[in-house]
């Protein structure tokens, strides 16, 4: 291990001969050494200067070494303190170690023991520093790996993620289905101070009101038919971490009221329970709907909207950042070739060009499915135009809600008939007014190419 810097040692002992001996010994080893004849002076030195290792006698007039150790630990928690004594007892040794001493030695000690002691402490310092650097590196990379894209739009999103991760504010992530809202939520969580606690995801759109209530708040045994056991809710599970509420726009008015109350007090009761539970969590929501419009229309509570929408991150649809398509294609090829244990393949120019020109109503998720399918059915060498479902059959967007299916289907029909409303309405077997309402509802627009 290479020591990156000169180790500094503070010797605290009331005996001058001991201070001198240690001073000379450590100076010969090339350390930066300073001495203090009592605990008071040592603490005063430590207030203005940093020392990597503090070597302190236990028995000193005035404040003893153990009291000094406790004060040093309050001042600088990570300090390495080695205590020395001429009168060794198991009790003092145990107490010193309990109070955070790195080691405990009995005077006089062998020169070799002293060298070992300092070497071990130096290693510990180097490891701690190395650990800090590695941690910082890991944190900066964590979960950003899946967020592929170098377009201006994605760079803006990533900068927002980096910025918002440092705060504890509520976040609403907006964007069409398949743009990667949950990945952004994970990136925020993984780069925040809450990263060592769980991120709990709830897909609100997939649950009925009563199930969602039980899922979020938990329930007590016997609270309803089938509640055989006590169950922790997601808010409880997210204690210390982050709760991610996907498809927040789909929750009922009653649940909106409940949610607002919990967000304001961070306290709630399990379904069927009578004990208040508190939980410290950060909330991140996601939606593909325009919540502001919903507030105007009266379908989403304004107070809840403002509570949640402290920060808004909008992820642009893939069609608005086509420059990211080649990079995403390469990323998914690597991902699926690796998971299917296949040799790495490439994509031919025509196929890539076609993908770059595609509308991707299902966004990145749709592109991912296309690449996965192409690798499965392809010739194992490269992805060709005929391996892609574009133009021959409709890509199957992996969406779950009925709204998403409706939106994607209407968008595909409109695209097919060049946004001719009459022909599209006829194909959809609805009247033109209904189609206009749907276009407005889903905020559909012709692709800008």
């Amino acid at each position, binding site marked *: 291990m290479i020591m990156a810097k000169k180790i500094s040692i503070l010797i605290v002992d009331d005996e001058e001969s*001991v201070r001198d001996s*240690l001073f000379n010994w450590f100076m010969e*080893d*090339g350390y930066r050494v300073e001495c203090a004849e009592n605990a008071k002076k040592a603490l005063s030195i430590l207030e203005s200067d940093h020392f990597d290792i503090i070597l302190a006698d236990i028995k000193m007039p005035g404040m003893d070494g153990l009291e000094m150790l406790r004060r040093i630990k309050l001042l600088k928690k990570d300090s390495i303190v080695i205590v020395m004594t001429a009168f060794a007892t198991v009790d003092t040794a145990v107490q010193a170690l309990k109070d955070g001493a790195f080691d405990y030695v009995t005077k006089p000690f062998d020169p070799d023991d002293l060298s070992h002691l300092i070497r071990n402490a130096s290693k510990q310092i180097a490891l701690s520093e190395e650990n800090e650097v590695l941690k910082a590196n890991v944190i900066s990379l964590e979960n950003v790996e899946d967020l592929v894209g170098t377009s201006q739009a994605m760079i803006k999103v990533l900068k927002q993620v980096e910025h918002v991760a440092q705060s504890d504010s509520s976040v609403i992530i907006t964007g069409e289905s398949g743009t990667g809202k949950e990945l952004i939520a994970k990136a925020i969580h993984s780069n925040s101070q809450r990263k060592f606690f769980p991120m709990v995801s709830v897909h609100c759109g997939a649950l009925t009101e009563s199930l969602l209530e039980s899922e979020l708040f938990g329930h007590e045994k016997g609270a309803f038919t089938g509640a055989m056991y006590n169950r922790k809710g997601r808010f409880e599970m997210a204690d210390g971490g982050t709760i991610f509420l996907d498809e927040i726009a789909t929750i009922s008015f009653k649940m909106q009221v409940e949610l607002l109350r919990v967000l304001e007090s961070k306290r709630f009761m399990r379904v069927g329970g009578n004990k208040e539970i508190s939980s410290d969590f950060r909330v991140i929501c996601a939606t593909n709907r325009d919540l502001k419009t919903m507030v105007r229309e009266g379908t989403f509570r304004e107070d809840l909207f403002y509570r949640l929408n402290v920060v808004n991150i909008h992820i642009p649809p893939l069609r608005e950042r086509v420059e990211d398509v080649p990079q995403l294609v390469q990323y998914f090829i690597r991902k699926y070739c690796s998971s299917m244990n296949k040799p790495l393949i490439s994509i031919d120019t025509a196929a890539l060009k076609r993908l770059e020109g595609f509308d991707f109503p299902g966004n990145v998720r749709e592109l991912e499915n296309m690449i996965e399918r192409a690798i499965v059915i392809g010739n194992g060498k490269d992805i060709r135009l005929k391996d892609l479902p574009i133009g021959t059959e409709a890509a199957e967007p992996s969406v779950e809600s009925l709204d998403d299916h409706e939106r994607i289907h209407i968008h595909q029909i409109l695209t097919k008939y060049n946004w001719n409303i009459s022909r599209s309405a006829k194909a959809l077997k609805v009247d033109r007014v209904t189609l206009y309402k749907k276009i407005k509802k889903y905020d559909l627009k012709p692709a800008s190419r």
Partner: protein
Amino acid sequence: MNQPSITLITFGHFEKDFLERVVEEVQCEYPYPIRIREGHLDLSEFHDAARRQYNGNSLLKEIDSRFSAESLKTLGLVSVDLFIPILTYIFGQAYLNGRTGIASLYRFSNEHYGMKKDEALLLDRFIKEVNHELGHTFGLIHCHIPTCVMRSSTYVEDIDQKSARLCASCRGKVRHLP
């Protein structure tokens, strides 16, 4: 002080041949004339009855105050067991970048460790210790190069692992002293 020199002062009996060999080896490392002289000190004043050893700190201070003025560097050679208050024993010690050091023969004999007498090994170890302590007086700190005489040694086995020579880097520092 006329010409800068290094003086090795013996306190107690040392064989003449033994000392001449030490001088030869020290001469190889330090570019100054080496002189030998006998010193007269009552070592019993430094004896610690409780530890049955001799206090290296006090002895070093005494030699520094009484014998160091006449040479550039002075090294006291003794054959008694040295200690400093915090350590159970020392082979020697010196003032870093100072004028004085001390080196003891006591712990270098094989017999001390219950092994067969080996005069050559004793001499070899002592030469290394003398060169090591003199190095400290020239401002050298412990060196990480395994063969360099300035490598820290806390056991005689450590001393046997290194050479009696300074590494190129340490030698360079001594040669380029003002």
